[in-house]
């Protein structure tokens, strides 16, 4: 969440959001739209048609230098050698302890890497990486670049119309395109569980592109509120809530981000702890929860055992607009992490009953085309 002390910065689309009826709140140090017409309606619109999200608060970085691949592998557990030109990988910025400092997307772009990191952590990430990279590997923070996400089953139709060729991309592939005469880096990716695209453009063109996209009948602007409920339904963890420096990739259920070669070779931050957890199992795991009844449990609620002792914590919780039921993510002891396990949650003086549920809660609909 935002720092309470510093005044909020404004996004390139600040006045555009306000003109669209966006209700602005403080998030990650920025004034951002939490909703326009309403979270439920925006959520369902994204699952049925296409939604436009402004994610310009996120950090867009260029990383370049000799042997940058090997240097980045010191703290990213991905096998970067397997990342093809214009291919994206989800990865983690790891602390030496094996804790997660951030989650991110990294793309190979010719002689450099394009990395997108979380808005609330971007300055810390840069400082951290600068301190761990050799001097001849440099990071450029693209502060003059905006980032939009077009998400939903009709986003490919929209892109076919506006940026010819972009809809030929498969999931987790990117490329350079023109969108309304604007040079855009477009990738088929996102964080809603739907098919969709992320569009990096110069900040001074953001309003032009956002207006063109929302002029399309399939597209409405979508706020942070629905972004959160969409990613929760998709089972995707949110940094600062479901992931933090005290959680490891194994506890968080993100072992897919630790590539096979890296497991075998090791040599990355936190490797000893991560290898031990892979071999023996972690003491706790991130799980999805289906909560009985209609009342949501919220972040911070305690997972308790039969005697009322705290044994875990809810890290995200809300109401699923598609399932019309409360869902959550929590860290629970491994013994309770099996699908179907009964979980008790204490919050606001009440006990809530839940069951461990497989994630995603709502199936992903990514458009894969061969190997990314």
């Amino acid at each position, binding site marked *: 969440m935002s720092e309470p002390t510093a005044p909020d910065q404004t996004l390139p689309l600040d006045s555009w959001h306000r003109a669209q009826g966006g209700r602005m709140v403080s998030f990650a140090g920025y004034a951002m739209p939490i*909703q326009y017409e309403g*979270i*439920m309606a925006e959520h369902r619109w994204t699952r049925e048609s296409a939604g436009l999200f402004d994610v310009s608060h996120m950090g867009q970085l260029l990383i370049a230098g000799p042997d940058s691949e090997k240097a980045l592998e010191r703290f990213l557990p991905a096998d970067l050698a397997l990342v093809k030109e214009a291919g994206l990988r989800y990865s983690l910025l790891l602390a030496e302890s094996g804790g997660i400092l951030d989650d991110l997307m990294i793309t190979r772009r010719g002689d450099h890497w394009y990395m997108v990191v979380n808005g609330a952590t971007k300055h810390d990430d840069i400082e951290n990486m600068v301190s761990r990279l050799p001097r001849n590997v440099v990071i450029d923070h693209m502060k003059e670049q905006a980032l939009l996400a077009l998400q939903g089953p009709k986003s490919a139709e929209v892109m076919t119309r506006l940026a010819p060729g972009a809809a030929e991309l498969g999931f987790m592939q990117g490329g350079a395109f023109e969108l309304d005469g604007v040079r855009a880096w477009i990738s088929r990716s996102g964080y809603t569980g739907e098919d969709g695209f992320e569009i990096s453009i110069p900040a001074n063109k953001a309003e032009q592109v956002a207006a063109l996209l929302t002029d399309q009948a399939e597209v409405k602007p979508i706020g942070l*509120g629905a972004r959160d409920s969409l990613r929760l339904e998709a089972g995707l963890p949110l940094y600062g809530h479901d992931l933090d420096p005290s959680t490891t990739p194994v506890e968080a259920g993100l072992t897919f981000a630790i590539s096979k070669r890296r497991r075998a070779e090791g040599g990355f931050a936190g490797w000893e702890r991560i290898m031990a957890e892979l071999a023996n199992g972690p003491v706790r795991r991130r799980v999805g929860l289906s909560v009985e009844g*209609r009342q*949501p449990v919220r972040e911070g609620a305690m997972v308790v055992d039969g005697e009322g002792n705290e044994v875990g914590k809810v890290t995200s919780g809300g*109401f699923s*607009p598609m399932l019309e039921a*409360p869902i959550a993510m929590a860290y629970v002891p491994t013994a309770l992490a099996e699908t179907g396990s009964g979980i008790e949650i204490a919050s606001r003086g009440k006990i809530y009953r839940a069951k461990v549920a497989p994630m995603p809660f709502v199936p992903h609909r990514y458009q894969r085309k061969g190997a990314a």
Partner: protein
Amino acid sequence: MSVYYTEEHEWIRTDDDGGADSVATVGITDFAQNQLGDIVFVEVPEAGRQVAKGGDAAVVESVKAASDVYAPVSGEVVEGNAALTDDPSLVNSDPEGEGWFFKIRLSDPSELEGLMDADAYKSFCDSQ
């Protein structure tokens, strides 16, 4: 019939003369439901429960967050709105009608005197 409003964005409507033993209906205002957004759960108090002015009386949860609803006056709850259990969105669609929360028998009708009328409440909302 008189309607009063609180700074916590509740309304309270007295169905008779507002004297001793009079029963009033309580809910949240249109301003409040608009601020909360889509309401997905409401817990209303059961009949017979004694509530004190300013004390917890109900819980309302939107997609975003949980909020407490405080009793605007003291008294005994005579009915909670059971319809909200099945359809909490009534609070969004008709906050000052079918989306009422509970009915209460006032123990101290003079507590109504400190509350706002519709004009004063409108000015209060405009200043928020």
